[in-house]
């Protein structure tokens, strides 16, 4: 801040000038006022030149602003008046200077706010904040350390200045091991150390730093890190005003860092979801391929099959295979659970079915049960298996699945546990004859469990009539009604008798 000059004090712009001008006209003859260099500002110039007159100094602090030349009593009074005006002017300038400094801080804070707003990267936020902090608070060194989680250690997100302290050692007070920073974290309040030599929290290696200031970065209830500044200038010291300013910077920085953490979490979650969706899509493709190859042409029989999964991958399965004697073996089932886990179990079951040597439905179900028990799989699988000879005679075994329908009539099957629930199970065979005009339909519970928008279940009452229709229409009926689960339909007709 510039010191007042006598010329400025006496100028029309100065507030004190009006006071002086009021008495100016009453100055005694021979009085003149000169500045420190001897230039005449007011009064008789000849008095200044003669050098014979008394000179009364006009002082301010330790400086001499000028002189009142003249020997009358007025000279002393005028010098005193001008000194008073100078002192007042100086106070006003100091206040104005303080206000201007605050204006600068306001703008730098606004600038910081605008810079931080679009940043979603912790390091970028920290660098920007530290850079701005150095513009407002004197510092040779600085760092921002963050806590990704409450239980994680501090890590440096940004540092400025020469991070190597005097003698080449790292500045411990700015790093994750800083005792000072940890104490700030624990207390949750900023602090100043202006005597680093005698403070035990500053290690001996950092004694080149004269003053340290540190504030916590608090975002709501959570502390996300600390900001530390250090000054190694001789006579460096931080004030309460500096700490207040640092706390303001810390508040904005903490919010921006918290946003960055949240953004990173969201990006990671989105990536995981995208990866899972891709996996589901891949699994769906594999499952479609698997199921497409489960129906082998069997001369003498007509097989209609439909599979409508409720989501990308489903838990229903079916398999149709000719036996050496020309008979047809078919199985249709439903794995409990959803998603990739259910789809994997379907793939495993189909693999076991393909490897099965027996064509007897009861033996097939027993084998599958043993496989599932051995796998220790959680959940259960229902299945219905049938073998139909070319003359129409059939044997059927059921493991907890919906009974099949023959020409619209439910074929009662004895109760039994689903597969994978208990070991060493046996499945009672049901025998019958399928005439050429009849059709047997195996289906999954996705059909009777279809639910309309108003909550009505399709149910079993309508199922008999529905099963008289083609497989595609049965499945479509369930879908249109309100599909909630996978829908599978397998309809088998004998096309000729041997």
């Amino acid at each position, binding site marked *: 801040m*510039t010191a007042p000059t006598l010329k400025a004090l006496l100028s029309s*712009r100065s507030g004190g000038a009006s006071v002086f001008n009021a008495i100016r006209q009453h100055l005694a003859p021979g009085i003149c006022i000169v500045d420190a260099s001897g230039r005449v500002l007011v009064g008789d110039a000849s008095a200044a030149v003669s050098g014979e007159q008394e000179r009364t100094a006009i002082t301010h602090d330790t400086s001499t602003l000028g002189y009142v030349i003249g020997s009358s009593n007025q000279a002393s009074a005028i010098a005193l008046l001008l000194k008073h005006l100078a002192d007042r002017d100086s106070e*006003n*300038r100091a206040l*104005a*200077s303080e*206000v*201007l400094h*605050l*204006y*600068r801080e*306001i*703008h730098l804070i606004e600038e910081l706010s605008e810079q931080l707003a679009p940043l979603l990267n912790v390091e970028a936020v920290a660098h920007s904040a530290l850079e701005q902090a150095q513009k407002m608070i004197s510092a040779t060194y600085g760092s921002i350390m963050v806590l990704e989680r409450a239980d994680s250690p501090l890590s440096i997100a940004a540092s400025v200045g020469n991070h190597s302290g005097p003698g080449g050692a790292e500045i411990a007070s700015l790093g994750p091991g800083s005792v000072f920073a940890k104490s700030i974290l624990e207390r949750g309040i900023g602090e100043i150390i202006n005597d680093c030599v005698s403070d035990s929290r500053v290690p001996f290696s950092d004694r080149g730093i004269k003053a340290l200031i540190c504030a916590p970065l608090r975002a709501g209830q959570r502390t996300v890190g600390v900001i530390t500044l250090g000054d190694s200038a001789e006579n460096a010291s931080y004030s309460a005003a500096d700490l207040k300013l640092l706390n303001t910077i810390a508040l904005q920085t903490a919010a921006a860092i918290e946003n960055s953490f949240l953004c990173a979490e969201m990006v990671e979650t989105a990536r995981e979801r995208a990866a899972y969706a891709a996996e589901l899509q891949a699994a769906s493709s594999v499952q479609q391929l698997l199921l497409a190859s489960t129906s082998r042409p069997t001369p003498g029989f007509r097989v209609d099959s439909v599979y409508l999964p409720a989501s990308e991958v489903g838990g229903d399965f079916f398999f149709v295979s000719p036996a050496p004697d020309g008979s047809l073996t078919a199985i249709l089932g439903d794995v409990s659970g959803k998603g990739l886990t259910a789809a994997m179990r379907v793939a495993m079951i189909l693999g076991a079915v393909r490897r099965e040597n027996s064509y007897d439905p009861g033996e097939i179900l027993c084998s599958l049960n043993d496989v599932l028990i051995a796998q220790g799989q959680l959940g259960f699988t229902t299945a219905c298996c049938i073998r139909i000879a070319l003359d129409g005679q059939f044997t059927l075994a059921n493991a907890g699945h919906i009974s099949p329908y023959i020409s619209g009539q439910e074929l009662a099957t004895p109760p039994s546990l689903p597969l994978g629930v208990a070991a060493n199970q046996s499945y009672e065979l049901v025998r019958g004859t399928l005439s050429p005009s009849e059709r047997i339909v195996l289906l999954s519970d996705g059909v009777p469990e279809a639910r309309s928008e108003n909550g009505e279940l399709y149910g079993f009452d309508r199922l008999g009539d529905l099963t008289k229709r083609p497989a595609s229409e049965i499945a479509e009926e369930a879908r249109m009604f309100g599909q909630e689960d996978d829908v599978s339909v397998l309809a088998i007709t004998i096309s000729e008798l041997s």
Partner: protein
Amino acid sequence: MKILIVDDEPHLRTLIQQTLEELEDEGVDLITATNGEEALESIQQEQPNLVFLDVMMPKKNGFDVCNAVKNELGLKNVHIVLLTAKGQEFDRHRGHEVGADMYMTKPFDPDALVAKARSVLGLPA
């Protein structure tokens, strides 16, 4: 070279004067006015190069003064910077309509004020 400072609040005039004081050593005269009418008189008499003009003032507000200077008196060479409260979008638009060259929000950035003065007056930064 002359800069006219117009604000009805004396402490703000003082602040702006103190901010621009360094330019006096480079041959710039700082003159002040306390209201819109005084500002118009001063502009016509002193023909300043640059005017820092508060918007909210008695006896003619800053917009009216700017309009008079730029459009009625045709003094296009007088560079006018409006000083307006922060965030008043309406003021910015209106300032543009009356021909203001720039606006600054209060509290002003002292460094930006000096930089603007140096730029308009062709003084080294």
